[in-house]
């Protein structure tokens, strides 16, 4: 994963991406116990988001450094890395609010726990709900923080449904 951080920083320094932030299960593990995951999900803001081949320059950058594509991912060391362009106001805000963590001496941009929880809430699969619960259980976010951000992102209904289903006794 250190290799992924080095590559992403180089990508940002060269201007191929404006910014990046790790999200999904690999980011979740910064705050919770380890979870099983096969790939690393990375949010990216690219300089030309309207291009038809929006990830083309990212793949090109990776290929030039010896990292080949594998389906929709790029294999970096042992990790298939999936690049996800920011696709909504929520993901834009998540990228803007991302934190810079330290990964074995390398700075690594990571989505903060509240945005991680609300992104998971917006996706709404069983494993995403498990992510919200894991973040709550590890006490890095509170229900009030999630409710607040969910309201700002137009996800109050999704949060209320979640809370009724999983948090009400």
């Amino acid at each position: 994963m250190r290799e992924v951080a080095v590559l992403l920083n180089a990508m940002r320094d060269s201007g191929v991406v404006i910014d990046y932030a790790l999200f999904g299960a690999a980011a979740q593990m910064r705050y919770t116990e380890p979870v099983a995951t096969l790939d690393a999900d990375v949010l990216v803001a690219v300089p030309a988001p309207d291009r038809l081949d929006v990830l083309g320059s990212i793949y090109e950058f990776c290929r030039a450094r010896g990292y080949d594509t594998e389906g929709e991912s790029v294999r970096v060391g042992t990790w298939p890395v999936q690049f996800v362009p920011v696709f909504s106001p929520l993901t834009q805000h998540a990228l803007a609010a991302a934190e810079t963590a330290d990964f074995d001496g390398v700075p690594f941009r990571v989505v903060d726990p509240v945005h991680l929880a609300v992104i998971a809430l917006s996706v709404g699969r069983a494993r995403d709900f498990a992510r919200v619960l894991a973040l709550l259980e590890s006490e890095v976010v509170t229900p009030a923080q999630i409710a607040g951000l969910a309201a700002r992102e137009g996800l109050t209904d999704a949060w209320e449904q979640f809370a009724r289903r999983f948090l009400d006794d």
Partner: protein
Amino acid sequence: MTDVERLFERQALWQRSRRTLSWPEKIRLAERIRPTVQAFRLQRERRTARDASATPAPPRAPSGPTRD
């Protein structure tokens, strides 16, 4: 509390204790279990494909004149 409940409780405690590891260490743990996860997923995909091929196809609707 039954033996099974005690076992679950110990397991939950152990799992929670993993939270205190550093993030890189947790990532390395996830890397270590990845081959097992992949094997499970492959097994599940094969089973799903086998079950799908063993399920008889639904009867086809009788053909006849159609209306636009």
